[in-house]
């Protein structure tokens, strides 16, 4: 049984069916990329897994337990971390306070908290330099680091990342994704929603392609990277047009 199993999720916004039966798996220690165009349902999938949205039907099984209906804050405690789209850091708090909140559930264990914070600072030395600065004053790349670091503070078994390279320069995007690979190498499972398909596929083990709320393609990242259907569905049919 996989660490995280999603089965036949149907999610509605009012009358609009955003997810029409999404199923996916993530094994321990692998990076699973979720690709697809804007509005395809990638973010909705992540938000449903982390309990921010309630599916109409379907199950999310984490370590053998169905977590649909469990409150979002409790899901974090089970070991699912989520870095939301647009970073959503607490702009009026300092960098350090943001990180502390990431370890909210272990707030009484001071030593453990400090150890994790030290690990995050080691991963992102830039954050250590700016720990007393208000988070809202950080640059885009630093904010992304903070968002990831904040999620790592809960020491998640599965880390879900929603468009971590959004709005970053190619160089920064690459360095962020490299960090993601490092995190996965340490044994954390990563669910990665990413617009930058090539870079996502380069670091991922497997990938799913979502289109209008359905999974249209799945497989090993290295194979999907050369699959022309990925380009068609996601990269926008360069191929389709030139051959037409």
């Amino acid at each position, binding site marked *: 049984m996989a660490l995280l199993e999603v089965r036949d999720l149907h999610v509605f916004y009012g009358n609009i069916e955003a997810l029409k039966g999404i199923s996916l798996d993530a094994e321990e220690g692998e990076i699973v990329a979720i690709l697809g165009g804007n509005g395809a349902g990638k973010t909705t999938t992540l938000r449903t897994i982390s309990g921010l949205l309630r599916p109409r039907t379907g199950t999310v099984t984490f370590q053998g337990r169905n977590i649909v209906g469990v409150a979002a804050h409790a899901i974090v405690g089970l070991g699912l971390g989520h870095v939301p789209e647009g970073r959503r850091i607490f702009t009026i708090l300092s960098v350090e306070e943001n990180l502390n909140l990431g370890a909210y559930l272990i707030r009484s264990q001071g030593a453990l908290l400090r150890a994790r914070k030290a690990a995050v600072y080691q991963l992102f030395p830039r954050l250590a330099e700016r720990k007393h600065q208000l988070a809202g004053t950080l640059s*885009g790349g630093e904010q992304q680091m903070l968002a990831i670091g904040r999620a790592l503070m809960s020491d998640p078994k599965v880390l879900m990342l929603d468009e971590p390279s959004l709005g970053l320069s190619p160089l920064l995007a690459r360095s962020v994704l490299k960090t993601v690979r490092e995190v996965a190498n340490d044994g954390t499972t990563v669910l990665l929603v990413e617009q930058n398909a090539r870079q996502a596929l380069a670091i991922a083990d497997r990938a799913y392609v979502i289109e209008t709320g359905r999974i249209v393609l799945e497989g090993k990242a290295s194979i999907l990277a050369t699959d022309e259907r990925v*380009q068609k569905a996601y990269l*926008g049919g360069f191929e389709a047009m030139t051959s037409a």
Partner: protein
Amino acid sequence: MTPVPVPRRSLPAGLELWRRWFDALPFWARVLVFLLIAGVGVWYYNDPYVTAVAVSVATYAILGLGLNIVVGYAGLLDLGYAAFFAIGAYTTALLMTQAHWNFFATLPLAVIMTGTAGAILGYPTLRLRSDYLAIVTLGFGEMTRVAITNWDYAGGPNGVLGIPPPSILGFQLGSQMDFLGVSLFLLGIAMLATHHLDHSRLGRGWVAIREDEFAAEAVGVPSLRLKLLAYVMGGMWGGLAGAFFATRIGAIDPTSFTFQLSVLVLLLIVLGGSGSLPGVLVGSLVVVGLPEALRQFSSQRMLVFSILLIIMMLIRPQGIWPRVRRKPKPFYGLEGGESSDHAVEALRAHQREVEERDRRALTGHRSAGQGEVLLEVKGLVQQFGGLRAVDDVSFEVRRGEIFSIIGPNGAGKTTVFNCITGVQKPRRGSIRFDGRSLVGLPPHAIVSRGLGRTFQGIRLFKNMAVFENVMVGIYPRHRTMTWQAMLHTPGERRDERRTLQEARRWLQFVGLEEEAGRLATELSYADQRRVEIARALASHPRLVLFDEPAAGMNPTEKLELIGVIRKIRDLGITVILIDHDMSLVMRVSDRIAVLDHGVLIALGRPEEIQRDPAVIEAYLGRDEGDEMVEAIGS
């Protein structure tokens, strides 16, 4: 997709017949029937106490109708409405006691005074967020009360005494029955006027602002002006009720105009159903009648009242008789069966009209011809904090083409869009539309110049019907005056019919005529997008900007969208398109601009763009050792 049937409680057969008869009457006749039944009922009951309560209910109903404009339609919180009641009451009281005016002669002045007060209150508060409005309006109410308490000419804390009852044609009115007649007469006027406002372009504009102020402004509704107007219109009815109150009571003093009164009126609106006319009537009956009915509880009645109120809000937060904007047959009574060419003809005629107007208004002005530059963006720079979202971007859009702006997320496309549509003011650079600068104009003014738009996330007015959404889009072309709307003049009626007809045509154009009466939220995602397109077209733009119209659409819907975009171009409307879906963009565009990290990296025809190495890199990321480059390159 079938329209959702409107739920109707079934009545016994006899009553049902009466109900149909009642529904078929024009509104003024329905008001008349209602007032007659109410009046005759109270008269027949013949109990002075009940009559007095009925007069109070009518007074509160007039107040409620006025505040309903501010709160229910425009969605602006007002906790100081008692001030208008006070100003109206004092105006009439002083004119009648000091200048011996006839009651009815004082009414216009009372209404003018309160309308002015509305403007004074509204003007500084227009840009405040709604929560702040609460305290500012509350402050306005308290300041007014304290000011009249300290105003010696008006009797200070003792108020104005000896206000005579009204007289009409030499008859002195005085009994409670007489007051009931006058109050019902005034209530009838208020009902008619506010109903007409509700069903005019003003009413739609207000509700649009309430639903989504940003979207309303961006589709051409001058939100600041309309909000101010809501305060003025709302204040006027408070003045009317106040004037009546003064002559009825005979002696007024500042304690009649407290915060509690403001709260009570707000209460009756929300209790009845915010924005609903019958809701106001029911609400005032409950708010005035219930404490009277609870008299047996004597000193506990306010306690019981507050408990009932809280329970009521928990059980039915939308109110007792909410306004449902769904309409089963929105186009009933319009001549049907015309071909959709009419929309096109109307559009062409209007475009010519606009060009003619511009030519006359601006000497030496010549509208861009087919294939000439319509929109010119030059050296555009936009900066947020340290981040340059758009860096020195220049391009030209020619009349009649489909021009696309693409680029990865965060490339600055939407920022360019926002600068063109006036949502943001660019740091540097010029934007000229048909030779005239757009920089610094508010969004609604840019819509009037002839730029329509849709939004990245759908931003329809959710609780309005589909056809009303499109009618809001016609707002900038509509010329009805406020007084015309209130009186429902023949000219206004013609305008309304024309607007409705045009809304129908544009819904026909996007293939949604059947769904016109449903609420916007009830439609599917793709259909909501099409309503947005219809709303944008309804303003008769010369250029429309579509922000990611294909997001969330399935392949079939995308194919249909391509058809619609081409059809729009064939109408003579220039199209700017932002989208991620490259296959869509490649298929439909004449020219494409590619942004990456705020910089324009390529501009050209689709086949040029596809081969451009910089574009491929921007979209797929640079990774030299990757097989993908070869895959794309082949």
